[in-house]
């Protein structure tokens, strides 16, 4: 049977249903879908890697701003309380909820930063047309594996819900970190939309050059 098959490198299998396809070069801007289950197999955006890298760098800088500046300030009855993203994490730091503080810190700050670092590390040399760094493949695989656990966008929706809950009770002022965090969310969504795993893996594959 394998005699009738083309070269293994010309084949691509759908990661979600295992259906074999023949890989072809796509016209710019096109998407290839799995013929069986319909998921996107690959997209063709020649500038995507450079765009992903620049968005990742932007998100990284904004994330630093988002954890350093005041996030929200609350005023009620002459009392005042300023909250940073770190304070939100530390809300769980008493007793039994401590593991949750660590989990929340990872979901909203640490994992997003690790993903960005890994992407910048893996894709940096590709944009300068150099050969990939050692460990670039591990770094990219790591970034993709962490994707579902990076929950910054969910956090920002949670913040909105919380704001509406306290709006009647007190005056809430939105700090610069809120906008930086919102920026990180929008940029991350754009960046993840642009990532075509197949093309990036192909670019990271040193054995075929």
């Amino acid at each position, binding site marked *: *049977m394998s005699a009738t*098959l083309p070269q*293994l490198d010309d*084949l*691509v*299998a*759908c*990661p*979600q*249903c*295992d*259906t*074999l*396809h*023949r*890989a*072809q070069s796509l*016209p710019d801007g*096109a998407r*290839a*879908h*799995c*013929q*069986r*289950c*319909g998921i*996107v*197999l*690959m997209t063709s955006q020649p500038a995507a890697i450079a765009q992903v890298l620049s968005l990742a760098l932007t998100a990284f800088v904004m994330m630093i701003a988002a954890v350093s500046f005041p996030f929200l300030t609350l005023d*009620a009855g002459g*009392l005042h*309380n300023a*909250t940073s993203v770190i*304070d*939100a*994490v530390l*809300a*769980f730091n*008493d007793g*039994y*909820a401590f593991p*949750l503080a660590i*989990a*929340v810190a990872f979901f*909203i700050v640490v994992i997003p930063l690790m993903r960005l670092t890994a992407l910048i590390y893996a894709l940096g040399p590709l944009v300068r047309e150099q050969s990939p760094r050692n460990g670039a493949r591990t770094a990219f*695989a790591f970034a993709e594996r962490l994707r579902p656990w990076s*929950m910054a966008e*969910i956090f920002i929706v*949670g*913040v909105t*819900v*919380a704001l*509406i*809950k*306290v709006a009647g009770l*007190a005056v*809430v002022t939105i700090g610069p970190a809120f906008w930086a965090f919102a920026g990180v969310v929008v940029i991350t969504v754009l960046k993840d939309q642009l990532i075509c795993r*197949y093309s990036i*893996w192909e670019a*990271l594959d040193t054995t075929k050059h």
Partner: protein
Amino acid sequence: MGSAGHDQALISARDAGLVACQRCGQVHAVQTAICDRCEGTLRSRDTQSLQKVWAWLIAGMIAYIPANLYPMLLTSTLVERSESTIIGGAVELAEHGAWGIATIVFVASVVIPMGKFMAIIYLAISVQRKSRENRHGRHKAYEAVEFIGRWSMIDVFVVAILSALVQLDTIATINPGIAAVSFALSVIFTMLSAQSFDSRLIWDADRTPQ
């Protein structure tokens, strides 16, 4: 639309005597253990997939029970101390007229977790029965569970922000309740359950058994 070519009859990598990498799509001879493109571990099918799915799912369902019984938020003001559960919090919001937000909280912390439990049970049972029905629908359900599951975490983040923000010594303080921990665990366990599901099994029912 794309142009990934396909053979006249769609065949799976496994039927062709090959093993495909789930990370990068590269195809290898069936005995290969490590993908030479991305260095990922190759497995034609995850034979323990359903076992892991069930284990994580049951853990998630167990953790969901205390999440609903115990208080999520402990509020103390000058005049009173109150505790609210997940459902209680949503009802309170609705009573204040914040219907939109009440709906978001209700959907994120009740509808999504329940829907996810049922969707995963349905996926696992239909694969065990080697069902050939409605494969596109089931694959959509799998993608939806993977995509939407994380959004249940909203409620935990709301509790985090509220308890960090509302710390005005005498007037009002809000602190997290134990339910926040079990709810977070429930979300994490069900996410792991959905990730353990090998979606290729949905499409294997009418393929040649090996």
